[in-house]
């Protein structure tokens, strides 16, 4: 019954607009920032640039990369997810508690449960029309309370290490498995976005929610999906943390919230939504990790470390943000 609309469209006549050198450069800025930082750290302490050291740095960054990747989706939709760190902590507790019963299935169970929790927050945000900031802030304190209670306010040792051992291996002897997993997560999410209409919908939602909705994009679904993925990523990050710490604890990941959001912004993703990508967050997470571990290791005193951290992180964003895409900087 569909209408035969305009049967004779004209043949193609396409002008190709190639990205200019400047545009290409801006999309590589996060990587450039990373390289510059690495170079600076190496100059400060030449022994910093060793294979061992780099391996340790990327291994360290894996949970942060995963957390930031998930939260990037929410940010691209124009929201924010403040609950990732608390959810991740809660998931480490779940992991430690369930491992004896579920064994090898625990990882999947954790990811499924955190995804469901993320979805729940998304639904609350969408249905109740509460700003995501508030929903996830509430989620943050609720998850923290639940984690505290079910863990009896203390760490739970994970004795059976087989379930997480695979994450501590090295691919090809040098690349930590945890980091490989983080890369795979970033790649898979990016690909799914790229290959399906999701990317357009996510960006449209982030740039202009009302236009997206009136344009028929499934805005609510997309948002719930973003929160779901963000939750799932928090679960996966929890498994990584457990594999590193051999225990679950109710506040294990709490301090990763600001670094994760910082990673997103340092990557050049617009906190207002729409513009950005997971690859940028990956680079951002590496920059943040290098700053967190690198500055003290190369011998910057604690007080100066904070001052430098503040200055560098601002400078990094100044470098990476593509201002042609983000017209108004709030």
């Amino acid at each position: 019954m569909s209408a035969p609309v305009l049967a004779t469209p004209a043949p193609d006549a396409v002008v190709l607009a190639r990205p200019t050198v400047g545009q290409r450069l801006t999309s590589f800025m996060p990587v450039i920032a990373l390289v510059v930082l690495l170079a600076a750290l190496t100059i400060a302490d030449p022994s910093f640039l060793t294979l061992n050291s780099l391996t340790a740095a990327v291994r360290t960054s894996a949970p942060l990369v995963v957390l930031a990747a998930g939260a990037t989706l929410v940010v691209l939709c124009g929201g924010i997810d403040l609950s990732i760190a608390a959810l991740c902590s809660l998931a480490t507790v779940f992991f430690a508690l369930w491992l004896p019963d579920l064994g090898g299935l625990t990882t999947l169970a954790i990811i499924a449960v955190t995804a469901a929790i993320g979805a729940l927050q998304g639904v609350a945000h969408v249905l109740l029309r509460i700003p995501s900031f508030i929903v996830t802030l509430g989620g943050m304190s609720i998850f923290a309370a639940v984690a505290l209670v079910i863990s009896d306010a203390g760490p739970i040792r994970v004795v059976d290490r087989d379930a997480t051992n695979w994450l501590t291996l090295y691919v090809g002897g040098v690349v930590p498995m945890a980091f490989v997993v983080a890369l795979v997560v970033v790649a898979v999410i990016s690909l799914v976005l790229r290959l399906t209409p999701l990317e357009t919908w996510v960006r449209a939602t982030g740039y202009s929610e009302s236009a997206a909705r009136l344009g028929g994009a499934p805005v609510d679904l997309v948002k719930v999906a973003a929160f779901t993925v963000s939750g799932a990523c928090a679960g996966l990050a929890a498994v990584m943390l457990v594999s590193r710490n051999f225990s679950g604890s109710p506040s294990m990941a709490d301090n990763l919230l600001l670094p994760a959001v910082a990673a997103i912004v340092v990557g050049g993703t617009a906190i207002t939504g729409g513009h950005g990508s997971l690859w940028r967050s990956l680079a951002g997470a590496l920059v943040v990790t290098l700053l967190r571990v690198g500055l003290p290791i190369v011998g910057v005193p604690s007080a100066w470390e904070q001052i430098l951290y503040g200055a560098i992180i601002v400078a990094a964003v100044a470098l990476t943000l593509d201002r042609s895409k983000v017209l108004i900087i709030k």
Partner: protein
Amino acid sequence: AATLTGCTEQAGGGAAAGGGDAACDPADVTLVGQVRNESNPYEAAWLDGGDAFAEQVGLTQERLTYDGDSTRQQEQISQLLAGDTECLVMNILPNGDSDTPPIVEGAEEAGAYLVTQWNKPADLNVTDYDQWLSHITYDGVESGKQIGDALAEAIGGSGGIVALQGILDTGAAKDRFAGLEESLAANPDVELLDDQTANFSRAEALEVTKTLLTKHGDDVKGIWAANDDMALGALEALQQAGRDDVAVVGIDAVPDALTAIQDGTMTATVSSDGPWQGGIGLAIGYCVATGELAAADIAAEDRAWFAEQFLIEQDNVADFVSPEVSEDDFACDNLFSRSQGAIS
């Protein structure tokens, strides 16, 4: 190029040395002290103690802080262990119990000498490891009980008290509160009206105490705080409420608390000797690294031990106002002189 040649347990070219017997040249030893931050007096004093020891042996201490952030502590440690670990000595304050195992495993694998303080899961045994030389802590149950008893005595053996707990998921907070419960059992007329957490923070303690004071009014005769910072916050709250009839006790013996005890506004605290802690951990590691002390020779009861602590009240506070750390405390044959026995 697909480089998935297989998964191994080890990164890099197997740089991790077996650690152990080849004694290091004293000049090659790297000393690292790591605490949460330098912005509180106790931990700043700890690092200063470490510096003092380092100076004593002609070295410098690398000062690391992680801002109370567990993940950041792990990140720093793994980065540290990725460097040269041959003669690395680490004196670490783990952020929480759960942070200790990965640090221990990392040090073991990398062959660095490790001493930890305060936090350790009860079921993690130091003797199972070669590189983890010692774990030192104060007996939290004992300190909680000591100040609990002092508080009971100060309010004349009967009356209501409120408790300010520390960060709920830390061992220290739990042990100390357990000590308070023991003390309450021994002093049946003392009633615990309320317990709240103020997260070891002075500012939070101020607010919580104010609220508890309005809630329980004159029934509150004493305040038990799980550390001195909270006790000092409670003191401010009392002052602001115009109450001078409430006894306050804390733990840690920070300078301000000692002053308060001298002035008579605070009743008691328990010493934890930051400068000594900062030095002793490095000293143990240094002695083993340089071969003056063989790891195998450390007695099992010195692998995990309670350090000596003192209840400080007005009559003995003068002895603690300027803590003296003598070089003798760090001599390789005198390292364990402050031991009060093994952690059970």
